[in-house]
Structures are given as structure tokens and as C-alpha cells.
């Protein structure tokens, strides 16, 4: 059962990648619907029946609305692909930093066996992972302040 749930979540994640990266919006919508079906199956396998039923009700609303939107507008995504200019690279770097920070913060909460020594014992002093976590927090805070200051400066100009 556990393997089945993990496989379904993995398939939903793959469908999510297609949904975000496809140029044709109908393909993208079909992939999103597949990801939603994967989520529903995983929720039912886990025994979260009410959440599964809510997702069953939510998915057709999103798919129907997007179909309506595509019928009234356009089917192609001209903006697909990753921009590799300064802002695009900065965004990707910020996202990767957030992902690393997020994993470092969440992993210790899931169990003591994932990363030994996290969280550190009081008498041992901070571990190397804890130091990396603190540095990442400071870097993320600095990047956020810099981004806000930059936006305000541009707006004033």
C-alpha cells in the first residue's frame, strides 16, 4: 500500500512538471487533471476519504474554468521556458535556497533518523547542518531585504 501511494504521488509530480512546462495549454490542462486524479487516488489509499471527495469536487471546477478560459482566449503559452537573464537566474537561485532551507527545517521534524545529529544536543554545540541552516536563513533574509529595497528604488525612479 505504501509503495502504491508513493508511486501515485510520484506520478502526480511528473504530471505537474508537464502541466507547468507544456507550451500547449490543453496538454497542460490534461496533465494538471492527471495530477489531480493522482492526488485523489493517493488520498483515498491513505484513508482520507473526506479530503478525497473534496478534491473530486474541486478538480472539475478548475478543469471546467480553465476550459472556459481557453475557449475565450488562446491555447498557446508563448512564455514557456526558463529565462536565463539576471532576474531569472536570481529567481531560480532564491527558489533553490528556499527549497534547501525548507528541507533542512522540515526533515528534523519528520524523525530523528533522517539526518543524525539534527537537532543538535545542547551539550554538543551546533552541528554543521545547523550552521548551514542558520547561514541560509540569514542569506534568505538578506535577499528579501535587497529585493524589497530594489523594488522601492525602481518605483521611486
Amino acid at each position: 500500500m505504501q509503495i502504491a501511494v508513493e508511486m501515485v504521488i510520484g506520478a502526480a509530480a511528473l504530471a505537474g512538471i508537464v502541466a507547468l512546462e507544456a507550451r500547449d495549454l490543453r496538454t497542460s490542462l490534461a496533465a494538471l487533471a492527471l495530477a489531480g486524479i493522482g492526488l485523489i487516488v493517493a488520498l483515498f489509499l491513505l484513508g482520507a476519504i473526506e479530503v478525497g471527495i473534496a478534491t473530486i469536487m474541486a478538480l472539475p471546477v478548475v478543469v471546467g474554468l480553465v476550459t472556459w478560459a481557453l475557449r475565450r482566449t488562446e491555447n498557446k503559452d508563448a512564455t514557456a521556458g526558463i529565462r536565463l537573464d539576471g532576474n531569472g537566474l536570481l529567481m531560480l537561485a532564491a527558489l533553490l535556497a528556499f527549497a534547501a532551507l525548507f528541507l533542512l527545517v522540515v526533515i528534523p521534524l519528520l524523525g530523528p533518523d533522517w539526518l543524525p545529529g539534527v537537532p543538535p544536543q545542547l551539550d554538543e554545540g551546533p552541528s554543521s547542518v545547523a550552521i548551514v541552516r542558520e547561514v541560509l536563513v540569514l542569506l534568505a533574509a538578506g535577499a528579501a531585504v535587497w529585493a524589497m529595497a530594489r523594488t522601492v528604488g525602481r518605483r521611486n525612479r
Partner: protein
Amino acid sequence: MTAGYALCMALFLLGLYGVVTKRHLLKIAFGVFLIAGAAALFIALLGVSEGHVGSLWQALGLMVILGGLAIATVMIVTSVRLHQRCGSFDLDRIWKLRG
């Protein structure tokens, strides 16, 4: 179930990637929906770790899914209105047309 947690986090980060890096308004709404789905799944997994998904976890999951649905719905309808006004779903183009 630790791989399940990791896959949930991957799905969440994928949705976040869509929200942060995409310029197409509908793709951003897709990202929001993926984030909500991943969060609901994560809550269900936390419930399973206690033995079964109790009513508290179910209520939390319901709230997350319906919140994500509400945000995605408003985003899609607003995107269509913006497209009718500006002729594009591209955030950069809409931003340049402002004023």
C-alpha cells in the same frame, strides 16, 4: 512513509516553482492548485503516521483544498478579464501596458 513525505515536499516545491518563475497567469494558478494538493496530501500523511486520518486532519485537509480551489478560481477568472483587457496572459506584457 518517509519517501511519501519527500514526494509531497517535491510536489509542493514544484507548485512553488510554478508560482515564482512562470509569467503565464494560468500556469501560476496551476502552481497554486499543486501547492494546495501537496499540502492536503502532507496533512493526510501526518494523520496516517498517528494510525489513521482522524477528523482533525480531515478538517485541515478540507480547508487547504478548498482554500486552494478558491484562490485558483479567482486567479483564473481574473486572468480571463485581464486577457480581455490587455490581450495577453503574459505578466510582463500586462505590467508594461500599465498606465
